[in-house]
Structure formats: structure tokens, C-alpha cells
């Protein structure tokens, strides 16, 4: 059993290079927004100690139902609010898109991505 929280955090940082992990989306999001771990955890509504665990989860994928199921599974595991997590992922994706695409590309990406969640938008806390 992992006993060194810092090790788990470094694992998340290493996993950040793989889009497979939530770390890729959420850590880039936090970096672009200028947040540290505590602030990212607060945005996600999770305990700071749970943040590495969330980051090391597989990124929710698939169709709307699959995406929602993945989000709910992660949320249940770490005691998160599913809608808040889904919104965070969507925000991270949107910010990444604006950073790397021109306006028309961003709009296309948003149109493609939106139906995947099947979750209503939530107000940012």
C-alpha cells in the first residue's frame, strides 16, 4: 500500500504527459489558471490528499452515457460532486482548446464535445 503521498503526487505529474489520465486535463487546466494543488482540489471539491488519486484516474471517455458513468464512478470513489467534476473536465477541455486552436477550431471542438457529457452545466463555485 502506498504510504508516501508525495510519491503519489509525483506519479500524477508523470502521468500528466498521457491524455489517458485525468492528470493531463486537470493539471494543465490548473496551470493555465495559475492554481496550485490546493486550489485545484477546491475547484474539484475534493480533499487535497485525494487530489493525486483523482488525477491518476482514467479520464472519462466515450458517449454521453459512458462519460457520465465514468464521472460518477470517480466521484463516488473520492466523494466528489459528479456535476462539478464533469464541469471541471469540460472547462479544462475548453481552456485547452482555446489555447491551441483558433476561434473556429474551438467552436467546432465545443460542438463535438458537448453531447458527450449528458450532464447539465453547473455554475462554477
Amino acid at each position, binding site marked *: 500500500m502506498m504510504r508516501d503521498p508525495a*510519491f*503519489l503526487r509525483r*506519479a500524477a505529474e*508523470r502521468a500528466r504527459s*498521457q491524455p489517458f*489520465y485525468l492528470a493531463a486535463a486537470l493539471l494543465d487546466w490548473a496551470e493555465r489558471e495559475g492554481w496550485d494543488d490546493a486550489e485545484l482540489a477546491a475547484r474539484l471539491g475534493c480533499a487535497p490528499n485525494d487530489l493525486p*488519486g483523482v488525477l*491518476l484516474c482514467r479520464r472519462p471517455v466515450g458517449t454521453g452515457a459512458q462519460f457520465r458513468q465514468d464521472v460518477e*464512478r470517480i466521484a463516488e470513489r473520492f466523494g466528489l460532486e459528479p456535476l462539478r467534476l464533469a464541469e471541471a473536465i469540460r472547462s479544462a477541455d475548453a481552456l485547452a482548446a482555446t489555447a491551441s486552436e483558433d476561434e473556429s477550431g474551438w467552436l467546432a471542438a465545443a460542438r463535438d464535445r458537448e453531447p458527450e457529457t449528458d450532464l447539465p452545466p453547473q455554475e462554477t463555485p
Partner: protein
Amino acid sequence: MRDDPPRSRATAADRELHARLHAGDPTAPFDLFRDYAEPLLSWLRPRFRGLDSRDLEEIALDSVSRLAMEPARYDPERGSLANYLRMDADGDARNAVERAKRRAGREISLEGVELSPSARNSLVKEEVDPVDRIASREDKRVAREWVEEHFAGSDRKVVWLMFERERRTSVFASVLGLEDLPEPEQRHEVKRVKDRLKARLKRLGVRVPDDA
């Protein structure tokens, strides 16, 4: 990972986690990291002492990450999950060692090879001594042992000649197999080799006179 003996069978926990990975449970990668990464690193450390601890950590994490992303790489029927990760990481670590050796060969560096106790004790003082003091020591054996531990092939011979305060280009050219070159080219090549080795000696903490 726990404390499975080598080549042990997959445990019930191994099978359950593998099944979750295979089924796409998004939280399964976290459990894989949490339960297997640190023990894997603990297994690697004593086996690859020559590798940097950060490199070893990355090797361990990358092995775990690969399995999380591609669970089909592991077959529970062929052994425990811990053993699979060990084999995977062991291969990466061996490759890292080979890369380090090749790099060392190019740089004429023997980093990772520890000095013998006698040489180490001697060099505690020698590190700030000029070459001529090292070369004039009564115990040349210690100096020679140090040279042999830090340099290989013709470099070892050239360094020893420098320690002996040899000045003749022809002697260095002979050691370097340059006898057939015209004398100006011999001088040029000998100087190039000596400059490289002097830089290496300086990095090792030996003060080298400019005229060495």
C-alpha cells in the same frame, strides 16, 4: 504488489484489479499506482544502485502507467502482477544502465564505479593536490589504482604518462597509435587528447598544471 515472492502466482487482488483495468474502471489506474508503484520502486532500488533515484522512480512509474493504459500486457495466468511489473521495469532499468554505459564510454567516464577504499582514502587529500604531487607520492600504487578505476584503454595510459610528467609527443603518439601520422598532426592529436583528459581530471577534482 505486497511481498510476493518472485514468480508467484497471481493473487485474488491481482486478478480483481486486472479485471477492473480491463473493464475500463476509471479508478483502477489509481489503485494500481497506489498499491504497486512504490513496492516496485523498492524492489528496483537495491538492484540498480548505479542509476539515479529519479530515473528509477520514472522507470517504476512508467511501468505501472503502461499497464494501466494497456492491461492486456499482463496475463494473470502467467504470474503475479508484481512479477509482471518487476520484469517490465527490470528491462527498462537494464536498458537505462546500458545507455549510461554507452554515454560513459563516449565521455571516458566511469561514473557509478566506486573507488576502492584505499584509493578513496588517498584521494580525500589528492583531490586538491596538483598532478605532480600525486605522481611523486611514495605510494604510486594508489595513484595507479585511481587512474585505472577512472580511465580505460589508451586514455588510462595517457593519463599515467601525464602523471609521470612525460613531455615527449612521440611517447604519447605511440600510446595512441599515431606513429604513422606526420609529426604536426601527431602534436595536434596528442594535444587534443591531453586537453580532453585534463578536463576530465579537473572534473574529478584533480588540479592539473597548465603545462601537464
